[in-house]
């Protein structure tokens, strides 16, 4: 079992590839790995409450996957009303996760 830090910088409004990453995140978690999804840049757009694509994030959260959203990216986009269960984090937190021994970091 490993730690995975999956970083999503793209968003489903712009990227038709958007289904791939949440599915991959879920698949990695299903194999018993400690899995964190960190949203950054336009990757935070789906976590605005009412967003068309927020269900993919909610599903991951219901399945006990930690979903973090970068505070600067949220502030830059004036997103303050978040989907329930999303945790606001910063680059310090990303670094702590990244440098945890046995962590694989994958940026999409």
């Amino acid at each position, binding site marked *: 079992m490993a730690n995975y830090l999956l*970083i999503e*910088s*793209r968003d489903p409004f712009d990227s038709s590839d958007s289904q791939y990453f949440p599915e991959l995140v879920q698949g990695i978690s299903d194999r018993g790995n400690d899995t964190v999804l960190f949203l*950054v*840049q*336009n990757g935070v757009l789906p976590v605005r409450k009412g967003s068309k694509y927020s269900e993919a994030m909610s599903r991951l959260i219901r399945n006990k996957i930690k979903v973090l959203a970068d505070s*600067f990216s949220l502030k830059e986009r004036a997103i303050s009303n978040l989907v329930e269960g999303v945790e606001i984090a*910063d*680059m*310090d937190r*990303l*670094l702590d996760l*990244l*440098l945890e*021994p046995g*962590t694989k*970091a994958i*940026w999409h």
Partner: protein
Amino acid sequence: MASGKTLTIAIMDAPYESANSTSALRIINAALEKGHNVNVFAYEGAVNLTMKAQQPHPNPVKGTSVEQEQHPTTKDWVASLFKLASTKDVKLDWVNCGLCVDERGAGDWIEGPRRGGPKDFLDASVASDATLVIPTK
């Protein structure tokens, strides 16, 4: 205080074209602030981040002068990161991929970076506590 940990990060985006550059510099900055050593492998367009010839400019839309606009250039941001590393007594090793430099004419860079290649990235990654690749699209 130095943490003793090292992060290796590979970047590809040219300046001002992608949010990836902002995030990459934020990560490097945060890592240095926390006392981590950082190895940067600047591949493809990212070699342009450190070009000495970058110049700030005024903003005709806002009507500001060069002095008023204080337009940042990526070379200045990177220079600040080297200064931060020095202040924190940690290492920032910035490698510009040599062949990428040559094909872009990006060889005249600020003090700090060095010329290298893929083997430097591999060696840095193997010796690091973590490796992060930030791809371009």
